């Protein structure tokens, strides 16, 4: 769906190399190198060793040959420069084209956002008017219909936001805003926010977040999305009275966050598939299969890794992140 600028650039570069294969300048360059190299090496050999042998070379001949070589080299250089100029011009054109594609992507996101979200707002406001009886009294049955429509609007909005987030991250339109904070605190906030839902499902939560400061330099709001996605998934896929554990560990310059649940084992062949866009192992479950894809994009943008492991009766989602985003060594 989306191309990063780098990908577009690489594609264009491949195209350029392909074009150059049939470029006449290429033949000139090879010819120039051969013309230059063979007599030059011969003369060099004769100058160094010729004095003692039969192939002694006179000074006027040397001057003549060198002059000839000079003329050839000037001609070759002009051709080489022309070729270089051609390459640079093409690269600039391709770069401008890639930049233009970026602009088009931004405009596409802005248009989609506006054109899809605005009508949803009108629908939501009108349903709120009906539901609050601001357009006249309604019956309980009508109210139930209105509420069902409102929840459809919420789901549509959730999907639009998810797709746009993914698109923005993939297109490189979202940059990380790094700040120093305590990762343990961020994790505590995230699980306390949805802990009431865990209680409703009678799930046991085992937070293994050691006390102390886990100072990191990450994009806090974006990493909140990651933790929220993982905890929401754990909530969805853990059966009633199951257990969810959250573990935080500092390993050198990295932090390892592990979220485990006692859900159904994920088949080995699906452990990577679950990170793909719109992939859902259980289609009947709520959601659109975007959460893990977005999470992986965010973690990778920080220079980290996220993966899943599954064993009988236990699933683990592991995040391995440099404490300072993008800094993977000392």
């Amino acid at each position, binding site marked *: 769906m989306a191309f990063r600028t780098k990908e577009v650039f690489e594609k264009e570069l491949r195209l350029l190399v392909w074009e150059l294969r049939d470029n006449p300048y290429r033949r000139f360059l090879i010819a120039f190198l051969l013309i230059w190299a063979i007599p030059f090496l011969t003369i060099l050999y004769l100058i160094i060793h010729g004095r003692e042998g039969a192939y002694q070379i006179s000074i006027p001949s040397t001057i003549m040959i060198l002059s000839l070589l000079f003329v050839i080299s000037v001609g070759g250089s002009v051709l080489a420069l022309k070729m270089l100029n051609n390459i640079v011009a093409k690269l600039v054109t391709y770069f401008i084209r890639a930049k233009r594609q970026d602009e088009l992507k931004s405009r596409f996101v802005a248009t989609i956002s*506006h054109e899809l979200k605005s009508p*949803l707002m009108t629908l939501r*406001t009108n349903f709120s008017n009906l539901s609050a009886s601001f357009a006249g009294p309604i019956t309980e049955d009508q109210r139930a219909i209105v509420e069902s429509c409102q929840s459809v609007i919420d789901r549509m909005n959730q999907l639009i936001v998810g797709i746009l987030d993914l698109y923005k991250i993939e297109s490189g339109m979202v940059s990380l805003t790094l700040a120093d904070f305590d990762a343990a605190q961020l994790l505590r906030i995230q699980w306390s926010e949805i802990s009431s839902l865990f209680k409703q499902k009678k799930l046991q939560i085992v937070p293994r977040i050691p006390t102390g400061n886990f100072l990191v330099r990450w994009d806090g709001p974006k990493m909140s999305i990651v933790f929220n996605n993982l905890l929401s998934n754990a909530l969805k896929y853990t059966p009633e009275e199951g257990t969810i554990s959250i573990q935080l560990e500092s390993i050198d310059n990295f932090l390892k966050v592990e979220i485990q649940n006692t859900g159904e084992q994920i088949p080995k062949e699906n452990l990577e598939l679950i990170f793909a866009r719109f992939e859902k192992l259980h289609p009947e479950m709520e959601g659109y299969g975007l959460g893990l894809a977005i999470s992986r994009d965010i973690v990778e943008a920080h220079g980290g890794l996220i993966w899943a492991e599954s064993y009988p009766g236990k699933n683990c989602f592991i995040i391995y992140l440099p404490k300072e985003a993008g800094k993977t060594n000392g």
Partner: protein
Amino acid sequence: MADTDKNILIIEDNKEQAMALAMYAKGMKYQPKVAQDSTTGLMLLQQSKIDLVILDLGLPGGGGFFVLERMKSSFKTFGIPVVVLTAKIEEGLEKKAREKGASEFFVKPCPMEQLFGAINAILHPPSRH
């Protein structure tokens, strides 16, 4: 429910949306007025007594930020609270709107309860007594 004497100006170019918002505001016992472009909005602000503005950012005739800037530079309107309601999702938009003087910022589609909860809190701040 709120007072009937508070006037809310809705500056929103989408007619259906503006009408739906006006109906909700009326239901909440406010007096809504609607402007569908920046110029009409600014004119209404100068001519009428407005207590709060619901402002869309993607407006014809200068855009929402133009309205916000003009409001904050006018002696008559600089104190009127502005609640931004936009479908735009650019990064840093909320920060920019707040820096320019917006009191609240909502992204469409937001629940009406949240939007009018914030409006009520602005127009009827809890008494300190």
